[in-house]
């Protein structure tokens, strides 16, 4: 597919995602019923959980593309990896800001060492390393390879981090009264959540394609300016 088509597809998807997100906001503010024990604050849930899901999807894709890049050495795979990783950073940041805001009201404290929250925070730092390695390596080719190694080790480390933070939590039970989702989700809450998951996923895919075509254009510009200077 040409860069132009990808750009168009990305713009379309991002637009659909944004409109869909508007619908989700309307649903979560006006349509869905208020949760009994946590009250209005529980509505953060419809942003927090989809953001977490999207960031995991994005980081997973980034690791996958990185692995394929090391194997096939196709520049496009590296561009896809960095685009997905940037999306992951954005959505992980949303997850990490909405989490403490919700936690302050629901648990009475900004931060608890809740396993999923901790895992996302560590993932955020792993991918911070990914971007630092990319940007601070003198030789861009080398930077791409090194960053891919960071993403792969990060992805394969996740099961260990996940198990260990859960195990840590079982040793040091935190004063949690309410589980984030509660045992079962009433119908309208589930509908809103699923709608929100859809909106976030589509928005991410749109942004991913936009970012990817931007990388394409950038490298094209690079090649052309190099030709022009010769």
């Amino acid at each position: 597919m040409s860069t132009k088509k990808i750009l168009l597809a990305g713009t379309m998807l991002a637009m659909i995602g944004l409109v869909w997100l508007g619908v989700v906001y309307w649903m979560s503010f006006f349509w869905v019923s208020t949760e009994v024990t946590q009250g209005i604050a529980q509505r953060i849930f419809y942003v927090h959980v989809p953001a977490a899901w999207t960031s995991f999807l994005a980081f997973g894709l980034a690791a996958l593309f990185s692995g394929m890049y090391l194997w096939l050495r196709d520049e496009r795979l590296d561009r896809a990896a960095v685009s997905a990783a940037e999306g992951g950073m954005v959505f992980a940041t949303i997850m990490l800001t909405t989490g403490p805001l919700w936690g302050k009201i629901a648990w009475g404290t900004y931060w608890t060492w809740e396993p999923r929250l901790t895992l996302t925070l560590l993932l955020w730092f792993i991918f911070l390393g990914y971007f630092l390695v990319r940007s601070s390596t003198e030789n861009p080719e080398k930077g791409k390879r090194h960053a891919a190694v960071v993403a792969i080790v990060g992805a394969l480390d996740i099961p260990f981090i996940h198990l260990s933070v859960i195990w840590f939590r079982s040793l040091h039970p935190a004063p949690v009264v309410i589980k984030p989702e509660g045992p079962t989700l009433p119908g309208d809450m589930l509908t809103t959540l699923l709608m929100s998951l859809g909106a976030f996923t589509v928005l991410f895919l749109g942004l991913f394609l936009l970012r990817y075509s931007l990388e394409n254009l950038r490298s094209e510009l690079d090649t052309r300016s190099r030709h022009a200077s010769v």
Partner: protein
Amino acid sequence: MRNYLKQIRTILWKDLLVEFRTRERLIAMGAFVVLVAILFNYATDWARVSPEDIASGLVWMTIMFAGLLGVGRTFHLEAEDGAFQGILLSPVPKDAIFIAKALANFVFLYIVALLVVGVFIFFFGLEVGGSFGMLTLVIALGVLAFVALGTLFTAVSTGTRMGDTLLPVLIFPLLAPVVIYGTGATSQFLAGRPVTEAEGSIRMLAAFALTAFFLGSWLFRFVVED
């Protein structure tokens, strides 16, 4: 296979010999460990907390920071005079270079890690008792995981403008399981709990160390290729 082991042995022996003649890294790490313990003394009210309660966490964090200090220098000697290019050009598989480098780091950091335990026993009267053997095993596994990831990412960070300052950003998030299971098992030993209770953590540490070592020896070739 025999040739492979010989190659590993040659590089490992070279690194050990250079270090034991100059003793630069060991002296720096050892002094760091003792000085940190001295500062811990003034940072903690030992009249109110017993060393057994908090030593496991302090021991592991000291090992982590000392390790950072040590592995950061893995490739410095070779970086001068282009000696590393020479090693890379020699007909030694890249994973053999990695294993030799990581094992050399293991030897240095393990010595320093045992010194950390010794310093805590000496300064703070830490009671290790009958669990000393298990404690050294747990520390060995943690140190193995540390040097595996540390050696791999030192090769990454040495090639960047940020240099060693990048290393903790890269490896600390990845090493969270080592700190969690390491301190978990250590505090169980120090509390005098039976070894069977720490078995789960020891298994996880072993699995993590092996995975990290395998990953390092597999991915190292992508880091050093030119």
